[in-house]
Structure formats: structure tokens, C-alpha cells
């Protein structure tokens, strides 16, 4: 589809793996933050003419 690489990630975390969930969430958040503001799938405000 062409969604920016790195912005979409999949992981498998069981409900019993709280530690892993925190780890994955931190990791993904950090990586996405480093990519900067999102460019695709952004809905601009309606233009008033």
C-alpha cells in the first residue's frame, strides 16, 4: 500500500506478558517518534472558501 515503513508494526503479546507489552509499546513509540509527523492518512481540515 505504501504506508511509511516503520509506522506499521505487528507483535504477538499474551495477556500474561505485561512486561513484554510495555517493552514493545516503548520500542514502537520510540521508533515512530523518530520518524517525525505522519504524512499519510492525515485528514486536513475542510477548506472554507
Amino acid at each position: 500500500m505504501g504506508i511509511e515503513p516503520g509506522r506499521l508494526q505487528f507483535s504477538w503479546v499474551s495477556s500474561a506478558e505485561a512486561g513484554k507489552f510495555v517493552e514493545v509499546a516503548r520500542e514502537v513509540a520510540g521508533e515512530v517518534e523518530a520518524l517525525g509527523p505522519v504524512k499519510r492518512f492525515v485528514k486536513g481540515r475542510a477548506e472554507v472558501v
Partner: protein
Amino acid sequence: MQGYTDKIREIAGKLLEEGKVDVFIGYKEGSVPMVNEPVIIRESKKADLLFWDVNCSLNLCNYITKRTDNIGIVASGCNSRSIVTHIVENQIKRGQLYIVGIPCTGMIDHRAVQTAVGDKEILEFEELEGDKFKVKGEGFEKTLQNSEFLRSNCAVCTHRNPVIYDEMVAEPVEEQSDVEAYKDVEEIEAMDPDKRWEFFSSIISSCIRCYACRNACPLCYCPVCFVDESRPQWVGKSIDPTDTMTFHLLRAYHCAGRCTDCGACERVCPVGIPVRQFTKKLNKDMESLFSWEAGLSLDQRPPLDVYRPDDYNDFIR
């Protein structure tokens, strides 16, 4: 596929007469050329309405969802696979169906024909011997070869014969074997993400969000579709490119592992979007990752509702 019409009428008439089915679902000639309409027949004397030629592009499986009566239905290869998917997904019972199998040699792309006659209005269409057809209009008449005007999904079809049937209208036809089914998908896969985004954005840029693709699809039978829900509203209802892209993406994903590439979505699109480009990649992945083609067997569960120890992903094992 000449001669099918008479045979279908004969079978349908008999089934209704004998009370083996309550309704018979087939096609009838449309009010304009090259557009055959689905028709539901209840009386044997109306069986003569039934019709078959190379313009039966809609998927009749759409009309059997959750029916409680006994149904006779005509089914080509792709339609029969959609019926199998319906049975597997508990939308209908096999025992309710009398499937009249159609060995299919492919449907015609009405847009390509329109272009071939210089966008003049076609007033008459006739199927001829030897896989040819004739189109007529004001001041023109052209005889064309079926094989050159096949719909893109029919051109790469490898399941022309029905996979499930109670009676066939003719001998099975030869299956195509030397087709490159996913050449276009491979080309898209080879693009870098920016190019790919540009490609998909451009093909849906003319979308008017009429949902014809969804309505024509036999897989889209949810009582309330996600696009129609307002609490919560999953997707905006505007034609903002983001909303449109969200719709197309989700529509395609809902078809993963279920799509039989019947092409009804593309056939009904009023603005000519190649809608199949979204579902085809999923079909390709299903084939390569799970060796799965939808609707081939009543005994196998679809990959997305089973767990298999030989799953290709490490994390799940």
C-alpha cells in the same frame, strides 16, 4: 457458451415444476445491451426469462445469503466458489441448494468493447459461433473475438468449471494453465513505498464512495457494514482521500482468504476503478503463505479461522 440458455431454461422449468426448488436464481437479459440482470424466478412458466451469454458478470451468490427456502441457482466457476465460501461461513446450507453448473469460458469487458467501437452507443449485442460476438449501433457493426475482450479476472482464471454442482449444462471446458495470474501485483510489489502510495492514491482518486463494489460482492453480507455505522463512526463519509483510502483498504481486508476473484466489484464500478488491485495482493499472499485459494472445498476451514502448527509466522508456534 451458445446453447446454455435453452438448457438453463429447461432445467429451471423442470425444477420449479416438480417443486424441487422454491425459487430459481439466474440472469435475464438487461434493458440495455451487455448488462444482464440477476433474476429470481418462482414459477416454471417464467423460466423463459432466463438467459446466459458472455455478459453475466455479476455474482449471484449475493442473493442466497441467509435464505430459508430451497434454491436453484446457476453457477460458473467463480460463482460456485463463492457459494462454497457461503456454505463454509454458514450463510446457507448445501441441502437447500440445487446448483446448475456452468462451464465458463469467460465474460466480456464491456468497457473494452465500448472503447473498441470508438465510444459509440452500442444498441445490439449478439453472441456468435466460434467464441465471437457482434455489436451493432447507429452506423456501425463490428464482429469481435471473445478472447481479446475478456475481463481481466477471466483472462487469468484457472477455475472456469464449477467446483460444486448438482447438474452441469454442458461438458466441462478446458482450464487455462499458462496464465500469469499475479503479474500486475508483482509490478506493484516492486515499487518503493512512495510510488506504491502514489499508485493506490491515483487509482481511487475518482471514487465517489457509492459502495457499488461492496454491494456487488457476495462476501459483503454484514447486516451493518462498517462504513454505514455511525456509533462509533469507523470511517468518515466524505470523499476526502483519507476516508476513501480507509474504505478501500478495509473492504479489501474483509475479503482476505475469501475472495474468489469473480470481478463483480470491478464490473459494477461506475468510474472504472480497478478495485481488484486491492484484493489480488491478498489472494496472492493467501496462496503463497497458506497454499489457499478460497472456495475450493467444503471440508477445509479458511486459513484465517484455524490455527495450524505449521503457520509461517514464528511468534505463533
